[in-house]
């Protein structure tokens, strides 16, 4: 009887799926590419909202209670909302210093690390620009970082994870070639965006970000600043605004009315029909066609 019970417990442990919780939808897709249906994945944020200001509603704590690993973007993108949720979940597996916490930003060379850190320059991130997922060349190191950690937490599936990751990376590398070819033909060599969300993408494909609609990160534009933007758009003959999906469109629409500049609603993460990393880049690249 006792033996049976032990056997039952052991086998239930063996079949128990790893509970993976991630902060943003794009991370869920990276995990899903590696693991398929071998783990449970829960996402805290939705991709249509400001990633800096995810609403820390109590139901998010529930998602963390049984997590075996929490994977975050890092570089202070989650500073305003994540830590109290982790503290209140009382799940020491996912504490910062444990194996069940992964900060993806540690695996990426961040751009725009400020030399002078002062909030007179807006809500700057001391570590550098945290929106690194939008450089398609960062997808591989991000996948490998997640793979390395999942292998240690779920060794019995490790071979499968390696196979899945390898095939994802190689298929995504083919997509990158397509993106490069399309982006090389774009007529939009200079653009304006709302927040510096797309800088990694722009840098990768040699697109110049002439100005941001917000004068400083996190600061709403004044009417004086908007007039300045109009003169920049006219002077430098800018034809495209990358409008993220969570800031109000009224400033972009005003600029468009005054100058005829095209507004392209551009996602920064997965939501709605954008259900995978590939579709995310497809959509952004399409805006440059």
């Amino acid at each position, binding site marked *: 009887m006792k033996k049976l019970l032990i056997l039952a417990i052991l086998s239930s442990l063996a079949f128990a799926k790893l509970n993976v919780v991630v902060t943003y939808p794009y991370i869920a897709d990276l995990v899903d590419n590696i693991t398929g249906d071998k783990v449970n994945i829960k996402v805290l944020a939705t991709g249509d909202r400001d990633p800096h200001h995810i609403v820390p509603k*109590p139901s998010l704590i529930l998602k963390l209670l049984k997590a075996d690993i929490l994977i975050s973007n890092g570089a202070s993108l989650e500073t305003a909302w*994540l830590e109290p949720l982790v503290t209140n979940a009382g799940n020491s597996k996912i504490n910062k210093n444990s194996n069940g916490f992964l900060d993806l930003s540690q695996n990426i060379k961040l751009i725009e690390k400020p030399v002078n850190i002062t909030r007179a320059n807006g809500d700057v991130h001391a570590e550098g620009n945290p929106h690194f997922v939008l450089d398609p060349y960062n997808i591989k190191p991000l996948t490998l970082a997640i793979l390395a950690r999942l292998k240690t937490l779920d060794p019995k599936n490790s071979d499968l994870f390696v196979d899945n990751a390898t095939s994802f990376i190689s298929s995504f590398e083919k997509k990158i070639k397509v993106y490069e070819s399309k982006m090389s033909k774009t007529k939009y060599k200079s653009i304006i965006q709302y927040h510096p969300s797309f800088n990694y993408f722009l840098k990768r494909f040699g697109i110049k970000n002439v100005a941001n609609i917000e004068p400083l990160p996190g*600061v709403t534009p004044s009417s004086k600043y908007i007039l300045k933007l109009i003169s920049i758009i006219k002077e430098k003959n800018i034809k495209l605004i990358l409008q993220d999906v*969570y800031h109000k469109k009224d400033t972009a629409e005003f600029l468009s009315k005054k100058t005829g500049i095209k507004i392209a609603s551009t996602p920064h993460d997965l939501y709605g029909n954008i259900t995978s990393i590939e579709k995310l880049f497809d959509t952004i690249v399409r805006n440059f066609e």
Partner: protein
Amino acid sequence: MSKKTILTSALLLTSLNAFTPNISLNTDMSYATKNIANSEFGHLEIPAIIHGLGGHSHGGEEASAMNEDGFNLNYVELGLSADVDQLFSLTSFFHISEESIAVEEAFFTTNKLGFNTKLKGGKFRSSFGRINEKHHHTYDFAEIPLVYHGFLGSEGLIEKGLQLQKTFDLPQYLMAGVEVFAGENENSFGTGNIQAVNAEEDDIAVKGNDSPNLIVGYVKTAYDLSEDTTILGGLSVASGEHRIDHLEDEHPHALSGDTTIVGIDLSMKKYFDSYSYLSFESEILYRELDGKKYEYADAAQDSFASADLNKKQAGFYANLVYAFDKNYKIGARYEGFFKNEVNGIDKEDDLYKTSLMVEYAPSEFSKIRLQYNNNRALYNEDEERQNLHSFILQFNLSIGAHAAHAY
């Protein structure tokens, strides 16, 4: 300095920086004007609930200072926090006024106990109710609600003790916690001896009580009506003995006995996008004080006459706040007391206050708020109701570490 020394000191600085705790400093300033002079205002009271909003206070300087005519430096709050080691993190807040500095909070937290529990110990804000654990600068209005001011003081319930909290693994959010405290709160609890000023040294009328003197329990739940709309509810109980010493007052008296406070809170928050939301917050607090009241038997002030005293009181507040975007907010608060029974006799219970506010936040780190109050809960020493109108223009500025937002 040689190149090597410069390099070494630079490295030393970097490693020091890495271990420097998170430091934050919050400063709150205001300009206030009202239709009752400061000198008179200090003697106003809410009958049987708050004596004297000004001069006589039980740690109540902050809220009343905010109402002083003219310029006020309400407080400076210095916060230091960091992980201690693999087990503990330490959080501290120092409340600095123009003349003094006080440890407002200093507590450790650990979640290493397992079972989705969190243990906290030291001096900290009780998780009683909804607003109590929030810091002043995160309030939507300039002042703590009247019912909190009346029952727990202008800072709310901040005590020394332990808290154990657990979140349950259920389909809906359910969290419960227990706190054991020294119970030194001067408005509803208290631990000291009650002794006549001119009594013999060993002639103590009522002996103080032993710590822990206060137990708090709470249950909180939340339900998502949709992705963007959440209802929150909670039930809290605080129970302990009281020793309330007002022997230095104009009308000297002291109380001893038992106190129970029950709080019910109900809130709802609906987000329209990342920044715009409508929030409704409300709490009802019921307090029963049961014991004896001591007054000096004669002018010698060396002995007491005592009588039974039972107070049953209840108050509430309801806040409605609308945030247009990340910069602008407007809000209204209606609050007061609707039950005020002393020894079975109803005292004044038509005690209401209305507040309106508009807030502009240029960034996440600064806000400017204009608030109007009409307070009809105040009485003068001749027991005449005073109708207070006041305006407060408040500036709140933070530098340093960026604290996460509470829901």
